[in-house]
């Protein structure tokens, strides 16, 4: 069995065995989905039209921004990365494989939500399955990249939470998950365009749910994918094996370059 398959298999199992990861990958997204599904349609009936993409987006945000960085920081601080280095595990595998296994967990959660929401809460079904899948992959890529980048640049577990919440909370409030993007004030709309969740909801609505997109939905997909690739590249460049995380190749501020595609979007779209 190749090293990749062995590593992938172990990481996938860890996503279920590890209590924190189980919470972030499954329990938190599915619990939140069930709660929102029970509450929101009564308050805001149109929520049914966007429930599936919104809850899938929430699941991706939780698993990647809240779930991915912490194990990476812990692994560095406790010396796991040093054990990996000694035994020839490459940095690319340490970053890429948890990203891929998280993507697989997310696909399972997305399937559970997509198939149960119409039955449980009369949610609208995605009209275009292929486009739904494309947006799902682009969002997973963007958020996994950001999650890993946070894990790489965060100097400690305490700051990891802060960095993650700086993206997670605005995404929840302004990203179009609970309230449509069109209802936000203009300044908030501009700020929201820095968030992957905003572009994901725009692309889901325009390409998969048969709704009107607020701006070019394919441009949103391109921004998500390019930000994700950029974030993975930056994470690899800034990666440090050292437990004190002070032997990076470049300055931490370089991580902000992962948001460049969204800034370009604000300026030119």
């Amino acid at each position, binding site marked *: 069995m190749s090293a990749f398959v062995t590593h992938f298999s172990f990481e996938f199992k860890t996503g279920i065995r590890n209590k924190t990861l189980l919470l972030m990958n499954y329990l938190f997204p599915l619990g939140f989905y069930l709660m929102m599904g029970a509450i929101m349609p009564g308050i805001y009936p149109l929520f049914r039209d966007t429930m599936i993409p919104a809850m899938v987006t929430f699941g991706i945000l939780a698993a990647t921004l809240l779930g991915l960085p912490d194990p990476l920081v812990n692994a560095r601080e406790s010396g796991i990365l040093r054990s990996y280095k*000694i035994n020839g595990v490459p940095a690319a595998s340490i970053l890429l494989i948890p990203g891929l296994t998280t993507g697989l967990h997310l696909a399972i959660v997305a399937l559970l939500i997509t198939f149960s929401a119409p039955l449980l809460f009369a949610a609208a079904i995605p009209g275009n399955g292929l486009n739904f899948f494309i947006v799902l992959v682009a969002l997973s890529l963007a958020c996994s990249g950001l999650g890993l980048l946070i894990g790489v640049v965060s100097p400690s577990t305490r700051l990891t939470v802060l960095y993650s919440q700086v993206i997670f909370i605005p995404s929840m409030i302004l990203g179009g998950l609970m309230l449509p993007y069109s209802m936000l004030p203009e300044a908030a709309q501009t700020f929201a365009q820095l968030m992957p969740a905003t572009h994901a909801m725009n692309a889901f609505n325009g390409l998969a749910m048969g709704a009107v997109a607020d701006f070019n939905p394919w441009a949103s997909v391109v921004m998500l994918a390019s930000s994700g690739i950029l974030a993975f590249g930056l994470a690899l460049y800034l990666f440090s094996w050292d437990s004190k995380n002070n032997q990076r190749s470049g300055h931490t501020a370089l991580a902000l370059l992962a948001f460049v595609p969204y800034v370009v979007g604000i300026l030119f779209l």
Partner: protein
Amino acid sequence: MTRPMINITNLRKAYGDYVAVDNISFTVQPGEIFGLLGPNGAGKTTTLECLEGLRQPDSGTLEVAGIDPRKEAHKLRRVIGVQLQAADMPEAMTPNEAMSFFCAYLGVAPRYDLLDRFGLTAKRQTQFHELSTGQQRRLSLALAIAHEPRVLFLDEPTAGLDVASRAELHTVMRELRGSGTTIMLATHDMAEAEQLSDRVAILLNGRIATTGTPMEITATGAGLTKVSVHTKANRLLHNQLTFPAVTQSLFKENYALYFSHDIAQTVPAVISYVQAQSDELIDLRVERPSLEERFLELTNHNAPGE
């Protein structure tokens, strides 16, 4: 003379203003067990980490099995095995998974038999965080030798191990040496170093205080050799005798203890006296100073304020 397996020349490593390793040089021959001794903060772990490719030295040259750890890290992984002092594994990883995981990356078949050898048979499916400290150390050792490395680095390998595991590790180390593996052992355990090492270096404040075989190192100290004598009629116990080269004597149970700086003078004189007294020698033991005593002598000599 064969080419050294490990060659360090003028190695220096500082962390800010603190110089952890200060211009040290030594070689380790193939098949040797080389003990690196020193108190906490002496520079043992930093030296090992530079050799293992985990740290970049500030200056000096390093060579492990003909490989420069700074330039050929990938090649180095195949020829060295390492048990780190401070290392961990993912908490959900079982010993079986760890063996298959690391062996896959090193390109060798998993050596599950080593888990049995190190007493982990019943713990093969137990997650790492549920293993005791000793079990974690034993797993780390099994992983370090699974790919049959040419050079094995052990950093405090017996810390946290029980007596049986410690004995098993010593047996494994001797077997590995017998099969030609070079072992570099950093330890606080002087008895262990003296028992196992072919040569040792004592590091103090980042510098080598002394190097040589344990016998050579103990012989260079100012320590006195203890001569313990027990006779049938206990003639030695009832007399305040003086013998050549003896600086101190005392009596304990049925033994007369003489501390000598030259046993070649002391021992014949004691035997002659016993014979002259028509007494009969039951036991005579000569104990040279231990490596620990020599180590303490060196560390006290180099202590701040000395």
